[in-house]
């Protein structure tokens, strides 16, 4: 991506010299060519943030709604309409051609800016790829047949509809002797089978001599395959080129901050609650306000008077996040551990680690408590470990048994297990929260999202002790500037806050990420 070395006129959003017809032959594109104009730093940041909002919406809506359904489309359209890129992403009626070109330009630019921000690690690349693909699918399905054909043309994709005779033959093969479909209004495209792997894998397409005969409704599957390959390669190339990019220190910090926002609030430094919790309060607090993962570790340490390294980290940092001071932490762990080992061993082996968590040892980093994403994805527990996420790492029967001891109804337990089976651990945790706090029943949709154990704790505390008003639990899908920020929100320095909701991922995505990491 080239910035700055051009003699083109400086581009403002409504500069007429940019608006030429043949730049964007279609409102959709596969982003094969990087843009090459200059823009202001402010516009750069704004476009990036707006597109990020769009992609976050894509992710969130995709979790609770099945892709491609009417509800999904409506919800996603609504969410995108709340962003400043709505005209660039959504179909809008009768637009001045100049404006249309402008909209496409913003689409184009914002995509490439986010590429810079999200190419730097495998996790980020995978996330970006997934959302962009889903966004493309959403947009493509909204186009009519003529527009789709135009898109194929404009993108130089050589998929041509087959002749009538060939189509007859294909449809006859597909129907067998059973029934005759009406073939007149459906086009079939002949595509090498390697470009239609998803359709092939599921036997959803007729194959002959190495070619797949794809009906036009399934064409999007092919396009996604092509787009995935293009974007995946491009991201790798961008990542490699990044270090040698001429950068004067204005872009990189902003880009790094952008991808961090995707991780949400981190309950790290700037805590005003240090000292709010003491060691003797932990037991009582754990019963209702600790998420299941932390309750599990707490039970372990109470029963066995010991914790292994992974659990010490996960639990220790969590306790710091809820307001346990270093002195109280040392007191808590020492009291437990010396039931099994002697004081000297504790002081030598374990107290160092606790002080390390609080940034008093080693490189003196004040470590932030782990969010759900980290707990779920990294460092899966082995035999003897008690860390991790119960909704992800526990054997399902054991988990079911465990949550049944919390006074939930049978339906309630089933409700939670339903999400677990679907691989949606964080939604399951949220459901568990809602049921144990009596704020919903087993059949209602889950409205909050858990993305951090400390978030769970704070919401719980607010519900149990807080002022009488209902807390501003983040309702599923809103990605708006948060004016109703809770008192705990870490004040972000930039003016635009993206209140991110979701690190939730489907089972497949998680598996894919894990495969990648191996």
């Amino acid at each position, binding site marked *: 991506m080239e910035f700055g070395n051009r003699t083109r006129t400086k581009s403002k959003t409504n500069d007429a010299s940019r608006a030429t017809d043949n730049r964007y032959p279609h409102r959709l594109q596969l982003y094969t060519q990087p843009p090459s104009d200059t823009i202001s730093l402010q516009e750069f940041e704004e476009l990036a943030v707006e597109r990020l909002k769009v992609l976050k919406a894509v992710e969130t809506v995709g979790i609770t709604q099945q892709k491609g359904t009417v509800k999904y489309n409506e919800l996603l359209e609504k969410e995108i309409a709340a962003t400043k890129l709505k005209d660039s992403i959504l179909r809008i009626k009768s637009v001045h051609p100049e404006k249309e070109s402008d909209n496409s330009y913003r689409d184009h630019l914002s995509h490439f800016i986010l590429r810079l921000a999200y190419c730097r690690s495998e996790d980020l690349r995978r996330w970006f790829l997934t959302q962009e693909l889903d966004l493309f699918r959403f947009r493509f399905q909204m186009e009519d047949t003529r527009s789709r054909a135009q898109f194929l043309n404009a993108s130089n994709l050589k998929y041509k509809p087959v002749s009538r005779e060939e189509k007859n033959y294909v449809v006859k093969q*597909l129907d*067998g002797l059973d029934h005759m479909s009406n073939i007149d209004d459906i086009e079939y495209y002949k595509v090498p*089978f390697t470009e239609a792997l998803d359709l*092939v894998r*599921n036997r959803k397409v007729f194959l*002959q*001599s*190495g070619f797949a005969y794809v009906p036009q409704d399934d064409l999007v599957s092919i396009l996604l395959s092509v787009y995935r390959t293009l974007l995946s390669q491009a991201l790798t190339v961008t990542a490699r080129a990044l270090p040698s990019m001429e950068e004067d220190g204005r872009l990189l910090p902003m880009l790094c901050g952008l991808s961090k926002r995707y991780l949400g609030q981190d309950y790290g430094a700037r805590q005003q609650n240090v000292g709010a919790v003491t060691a003797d309060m932990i037991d009582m607090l754990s019963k209702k306000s600790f998420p299941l993962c932390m309750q599990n570790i707490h039970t372990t340490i109470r029963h066995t008077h010991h914790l292994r390294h992974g659990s010490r980290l996960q639990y220790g940092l969590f306790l710091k996040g809820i307001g346990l001071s270093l002195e109280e932490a040392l007191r808590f762990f020492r009291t437990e551990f010396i039931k099994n080992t002697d004081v000297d061993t504790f002081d030598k082996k374990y107290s160092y680690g606790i002080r390390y968590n609080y940034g008093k040892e080693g490189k003196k980093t004040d470590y932030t408590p782990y969010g759900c994403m980290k707990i779920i994805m990294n460092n899966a527990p082995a035999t003897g470990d008690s860390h991790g996420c119960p909704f992800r790492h526990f054997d399902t029967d054991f988990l079911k048994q465990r949550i049944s001891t919390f006074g939930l109804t049978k339906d309630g337990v089933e409700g939670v297990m339903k999400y677990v089976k679907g691989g949606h651990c964080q939604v399951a945790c949220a459901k568990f929260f809602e049921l144990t706090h009596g704020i919903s029943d087993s059949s209602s949709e889950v409205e909050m999202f858990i993305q951090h154990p400390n978030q769970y704790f704070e919401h719980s505390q607010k519900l149990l002790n807080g002022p009488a008003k209902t807390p501003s639990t983040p309702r599923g899908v809103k990605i708006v500037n948060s004016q109703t920020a809770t008192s705990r929100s870490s004040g972000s320095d930039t003016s635009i806050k993206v209140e991110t909701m979701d690190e939730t991922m489907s089972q497949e995505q998680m598996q894919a990420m894990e495969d990648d990491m191996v």
Partner: protein
Amino acid sequence: LTNMSATNYDQNCLPDLLPLYYKRLFPYGPYYKWLNYGGIPRHYFSHREFSFTLKDDVYLRYQSFSDQQDFEKELQKKCPYKIDIGAVYTHRPKEHKTVKSAAFQAQEKELVFDIDMTDYDDVRSCCSGADICPKCWPLMTMAVKILDRALREDFGFEHLLWVYSGRRGIHCWICDETARKLSPQGRSAIAEYLTLIKGGENQVRKVNLPDKLHPSIRQAVTIINGYIVDYLMEKQDLLDCEQKWKKVVALVPADNVREQLLEDFCGKLGKDSRSRWKILTTRLEQAVQKNMTKQLHVEDEIKLQFCYPRLDVNVSKGVNHLLKSPFCIHPKTGRVCVPMDPRKIDEFDPMTVPTISGLLDELDSLEPAENNDQGKKIKDYKKTSLGPFLEVFETFLQGLESSRKGKLIEQSDIKMEF
């Protein structure tokens, strides 16, 4: 040429027999011709990984050889019990330690399939485990026919090498250039396309078909239909007694139909497998016509569960997966891993595949040094029972050769165009 030698094989003699086999019988020329692929690209053979299993289970990976001579020398020196073929890498596998690990990558390999008789234990009543017999061998015959058709007709592959593994299974090596260049995703997509049997011990009904059948499934059923009488009814005697027909009836999803069938059979309706099969199929057809069931293809599902090929997806998925080489000896049976002709697969009998001891006996009783018409010395392997199998291999090689020639002509035509 006698087959009695098969029973003479003694596993303990292998260390003495192998040196002779590798000296006089292993077909180095044709084998090298295959894996060299016409020297296009030049390093194809030298960058190929082989693995050897030596005596006492000593396993050596990342073996590679510069040419046929080098290969021949090493084989005769080491006399491996087992040879596996792996992928073609970016560098010579035997030098992989001198390369940065991220740079040493598997690039190409044939697409392979491995069918193992043990995966059919739940649907064959004659044998289990490593045993095979003429009563259950037709499962392999059907597997070859069904997969060969699908790979050639649906996927357009041309150069398939089918091999008998020497004991209880078969392998297929797909050697087209497009196949060798396939990504892991491509390989797994093909394997899944070809997979119809899903589920382990706890799954009774392992085949679930949608209402509209994909053409490849219809084709598979057509092939299986040709074996119902001979294989299902006679060899397996599928509905012979209560213990056996219960297993089949358990696959019928509709309770009422299932109960009706059990009533029929226990009530002595039908006197043997054939007549009971007729009753079964009639009842199923009636059930569909009278709307008594939601599943429209139960008869097909039963046929497929008992006869459709079961392949191990993991063998096919990975580019770097190692698979047993053709022409090595199976240590347990002494049989040679021989090519099979898919067009004559009905005549293939694993019991008549030559063993190493049998072949060496044959060599002893041969006429010395016969020359062929061109005055060249005929290779020993052509004079033994191994000969016909080499012919199958040569035909396969000729196919590869003409494909290559065709492509070169195509390319030079394009160049000459201007």
